[in-house]
């Protein structure tokens, strides 16, 4: 607490300085070739693009944690739901999938949800001894009915051309349209989750959301009819041209030549720039909205709620309502990031949705950047992503450095062989160093 005044003094310059630092890192990555940087704009832009998406994720987490103190560790789940958006909206329809069982699946899902709704109603309306019989009964009947409808429909869909499809397929709509849909998926799930779990305090909410994230990912991995499960869904359409088309485009090749670049490099860079433009626009739009909200009474109310719920409730603030609101919005933003991510990857690979990478790394981004501060979390996201990727190179380099003075021999060989694992050490060390020198984040909340 005692250093607040000091922080204020530097406060206004923190964000620009960090921004410049990051910009410099990217410049180096783009231009210089040495042991640490690759000197390739392609590489720099590739990192930047995913960095921008990470920034959107971080923004979503920051809304939940930084504004309202909601400890959501189910990031990966909401991300995965958002990622479902492009698959269901924009991939090509699968021949025969809907007729095989699409409607029956929808019906089954409706029955499932209806059962849950009915059970909650019973729980609310019916008094104790009777409800103990009724609820299991409702659940049992609902479950049987659900399985009765669901299982054969799913079998039919999955049997439909199972090697290369086996899912219900998409609608073939433009992929940009799927981004808000992805956000909507995540928001809908967040609403349900929030209704149930938001009463929990800090770490308990954390584990509940962690579980929910795991559940969502488990569903995505195992429900093949939905998006092919672990068999991966590739070929998701792009909002930008394909490199090869550009390379075959005479006009483009001529322009590239004018810039003194070979067509392959030029096309790759151009495509990445287009992506960066798209992602950047989304990000800036979100930041603008978030900043406006945060700097007004709404933001003040959120901080008050985060600070002291009991007092805020006594001052007339509807804690549950506000928590739900921000939880849904934050999750929607995370879902949006998920949709953007699969669009960039061109691939939905649920096997890769692991909490370390998509939940905790995002948390690291937010905290290192400065929770509660939009710019902080965004800059933190880009920086941490950069480090995460570069640790792949820096780790082994670090090992080279360490083993330099060692004599040739088994030990040195063992260490050199283990060099890839220095990735973690390098990442850990940078994280610790950043936290050490900016314990409240790079751009702390004022």
């Amino acid at each position, binding site marked *: 607490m005692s250093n607040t005044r000091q922080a204020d003094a530097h406060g206004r310059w923190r964000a620009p300085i960090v921004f410049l630092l990051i910009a410099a890192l990217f410049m180096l990555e783009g231009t210089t070739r040495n042991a640490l940087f690759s000197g390739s704009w392609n590489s720099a832009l590739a990192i930047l693009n995913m960095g921008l998406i990470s920034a959107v994720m971080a923004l979503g987490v920051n809304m939940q944690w930084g504004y309202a103190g909601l400890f959501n560790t189910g990031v990966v789940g909401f991300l995965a739901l958002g990622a479902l958006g492009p698959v269901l909206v924009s991939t090509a329809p699968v021949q025969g999938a809907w007729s095989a069982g699409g409607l029956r699946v929808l019906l089954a899902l409706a029955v499932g949800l209806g059962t849950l709704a009915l059970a909650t109603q019973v729980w609310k309306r019916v008094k104790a001894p009777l409800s103990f019989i009724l609820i299991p009964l409702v659940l049992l009947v609902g479950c049987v009915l659900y399985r009765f409808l669901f299982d054969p429909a799913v079998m039919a869909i999955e049997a439909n051309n199972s090697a290369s499809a086996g899912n219900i397929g998409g609608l073939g709509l433009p992929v940009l349209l799927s981004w808000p849909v992805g956000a909507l998926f995540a928001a809908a799930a967040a609403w349900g989750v929030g209704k149930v779990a938001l009463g929990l305090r800090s770490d308990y909410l954390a584990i509940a959301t962690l*579980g929910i994230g795991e559940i969502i990912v488990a569903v995505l991995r195992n429900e093949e009819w939905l998006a092919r499960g672990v068999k991966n869904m590739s070929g998701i359409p792009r909002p930008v041209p394909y490199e090869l088309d550009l390379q075959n485009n005479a006009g483009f090749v001529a322009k590239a030549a004018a810039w003194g670049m070979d067509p392959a490099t030029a096309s790759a860079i151009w495509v990445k720039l287009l992506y960066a433009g798209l992602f950047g626009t989304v990000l800036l739009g979100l930041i603008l909205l978030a900043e406006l909200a945060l700097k007004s009474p709404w933001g003040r109310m959120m901080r008050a709620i985060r600070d002291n719920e009991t007092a805020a409730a006594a001052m007339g603030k509807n804690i549950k309502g506000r928590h739900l609101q921000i939880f849904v919005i934050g999750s929607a933003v995370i879902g949006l990031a998920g949709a953007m991510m699969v669009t960039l990857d061109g691939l939905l690979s649920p096997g890769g949705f692991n909490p370390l990478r998509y939940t905790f790394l995002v948390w690291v981004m937010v905290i290192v950047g400065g929770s509660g501060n939009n710019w902080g979390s965004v800059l933190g996201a880009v920086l941490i992503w950069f480090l995460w990727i570069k640790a792949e190179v820096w780790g082994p380099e670090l090992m080279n450095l360490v083993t330099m003075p060692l004599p040739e021999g088994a030990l040195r060989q063992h260490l050199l062989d283990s060099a890839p694992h220095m990735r973690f*050490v390098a990442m850990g060390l940078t994280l610790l160093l950043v936290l050490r020198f900016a314990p409240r984040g790079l751009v702390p909340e004022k």
Partner: protein
Amino acid sequence: MDFLNALVAILNFVVIPAAAYGAQLALGALGVTLIYGILRFSNFAHGDTMAFGTGLVILVTWGLQALGISLGPLPVALLALPIGIALCSAFVLGTDRVVYRFYRKKKSDSIIMVMASVGVMFVMNGLTRLLIGVDEIRFDDGARFLISVQDFKAWTGLTEGLALRLSQALTLVVTALCCWALFRFLNKSRSGKAMRAYADNEDLALLSGIDPERIVRLTWIIATALAVTAGTLYGLDKSFKAFNYFQILLPIFAAAIVGGLGSPIGAVAGGFIVAFSEVAVTYPWKKIATYLGFQPEGLLQLLSTEYKFAVSFVILIVVLLFRPTGLFRGKAY
């Protein structure tokens, strides 16, 4: 109707494995809960502390084996355990000195400590792999089974067999001992009470003449001892593989929280709940039903095993809904 066979089948496939796994989780959760309760943050590096410590134990074990030492039926690793704990504690105290102490002095938010522990996790993660590699390592010597399936069948003449591994029995016994000792320590001993006092109100603990750094050291040492013990038992029972120790972190946290963070009994209960829900909910009851005289058509499996982790989390969430701070009323900072 073959009640005995049904019982044995359940014991063999559900109760014994789940109990052993639950005990391993419980030991891990005890450490997590202790650090949470006293140092007030969720230590993400706990899984890797287990891995690192176990790595050390394995190295020592190899050394002892090379010297020709053997404990008869018991694994030599038990002998190596104290040494491993000592070495690992030294390392962990080192991390406290260079990492956590800084934030403690600054009274940083606990989330900062959590993130620092993520950093430590990464570092330990790498170091463990440098130390002992990524391969699967088996280091249990001594007897493998207390009761083996073949023996059991021969004794009883039942069609179902029952196996009890030494490592499982060992795990259960050690967990019970650790839990009891920790409980006694926290509630009865002067140091234990001082630890709780420190957890409750750091400044006031200072005013009572309690040395906070000593408390912190003690906490780390106990938590590390628990972690290394858990890791070693787990490694003896299954096998050692650095990556798995990171994966076990999630169920450990789940266990600690469902029981109530900061509550030792809660951690133990939580461990068993998580383990049993994983095993029991996905268990197909067909065989049991058959023994009991029914002829079910399907497998009678509630959910497929791919969802086992999800199931344990569903149970956890349901528990939390009815008991928002865990079964044994943990803390929520």
